[in-house]
């Protein structure tokens, strides 16, 4: 049984208002049966500093990524992880985190790769909760481990691989990194090699829309009208477009994926998690340097 949705009028304008909850809603529903709150941060220690009462921690580095292969955890490991956090397949999960939910969106995207039915974001994340003076605790909840079924991860719907990008040319790509990363300028630091990718620049034809353009000053999502100004008027996306978003390793682009998919209702949006750390080191693929998107090469035919 999923828990009632937040009927906040701000959310009603979005295509899928049920994927967001407000801090007010969460504080009223914290003790609801069937709800688990998950904190997922860039900074691995923030949960220990203090978290929303009853919240559990899931870290994307140490929990959601496979320690050996560059991939997400296996179906079995995901089931074990969620069971260990007291989450069952019909639990309503609310995820929140630092940096305007950047990592929380990433965790939500991984939950969706495994098809978890009811997972929502706390609008504004950790920062807004704290700014409103709401309660934090250092107390880690006692959890009794429960059964989460082993579900096969679906990599075909929400996730793009490099070959999908090669076939995608001619359709919109959104690069959500900073302007300096997009243009390929890099600050070469003495005694520190440039790392992450062997080339700087962006995928040809990608529009530059830094992820934070979707975020208001209080860390919550901008209104629907403001988001349309950024992505439709600004980046030229049109209803029905097939879109791939990417960043450096797929974290910031999960945030944009969330916005396009749930808030603006694009039904065919994928996150290319290989992102620039893969593309910028791949042998033989085209890239563009500078601030212009550049022309899309012909799509690769399978």
């Amino acid at each position, binding site marked *: 049984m999923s828990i009632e949705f937040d009927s906040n009028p701000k959310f009603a304008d979005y295509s899928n208002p049920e994927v967001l909850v407000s801090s007010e809603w969460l504080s009223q529903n914290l003790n609801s049966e069937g709800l688990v709150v998950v904190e997922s941060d860039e*900074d*691995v220690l923030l949960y220990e*500093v203090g978290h929303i009462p009853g919240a559990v921690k899931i870290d994307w580095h*140490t929990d959601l990524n496979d320690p050996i292969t560059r991939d997400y955890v296996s179906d079995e490991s995901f089931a074990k992880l969620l069971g260990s956090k007291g989450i069952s397949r019909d639990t309503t999960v609310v995820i929140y985190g630092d940096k305007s939910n950047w990592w929380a969106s990433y965790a939500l995207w991984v939950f969706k790769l495994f098809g978890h039915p009811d997972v929502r974001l706390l609008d504004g994340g950790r920062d807004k909760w704290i700014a409103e003076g709401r309660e934090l605790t250092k107390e880690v909840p006692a959890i009794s481990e429960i059964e989460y079924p082993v579900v096969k991860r679906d990599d075909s719907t929400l996730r793009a691989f490099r070959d999908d990008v090669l076939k995608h040319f001619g359709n919109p790509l959104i690069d959500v990194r900073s302007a300096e990363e997009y243009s390929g300028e890099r600050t070469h630091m003495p*005694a*520190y090699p440039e790392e992450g990718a062997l080339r700087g620049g962006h995928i040809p034809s990608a529009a530059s829309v830094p992820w934070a353009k979707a975020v208001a000053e209080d860390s919550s999502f901008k209104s629907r009208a403001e988001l349309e100004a950024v992505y439709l008027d600004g980046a030229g996306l049109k209803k029905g477009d097939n879109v791939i978003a990417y960043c450096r390793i797929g974290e910031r682009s999960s945030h944009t994926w969330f916005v396009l998919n749930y808030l603006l209702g694009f039904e065919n949006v994928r996150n290319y998690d290989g992102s620039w750390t893969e593309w910028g080191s791949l042998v033989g693929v085209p890239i563009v340097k500078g601030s212009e998107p550049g022309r899309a090469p012909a799509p690769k035919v399978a």
Partner: protein
Amino acid sequence: MPIETTSGLIEDFQSIGVKDRLNLLLEFSENLPTLPSRYLDHPDLLERVEECQSPIYLFVEVTDGHVYLFFTAPEESPTTRGFASILHSVMDGLSVEDTLNFDDDFPSKIGLAEAVSPLRIRGMRGMMARIKRQVSEKK
């Protein structure tokens, strides 16, 4: 002299489980010394460590052949503060020579990579590289 030896610190981290290493890192984070007022009033003197996703700034003083370290990072970035505090505890007060010869692989030896991930450890390497560079410019 630094307040901790590298071998002592490595031993402290290696002797406990992965979860406790996070708590120890948090303790370091909470004990990062605050900046003296001469830097608080002159944030322009500090150098930003770009390898960290969180903003951290550092400054190095060389006095009578010894190296003194100053860091500042926001409270919302406890991991970065923890890394800075660890480096402060093993490097602050070292001689110029010992600083320049300081083991570049130290961040890998404290067992934090398993607890916080190898990617995050890069931030500590970035701080070390900048400390050494500033020292070689100022010695």
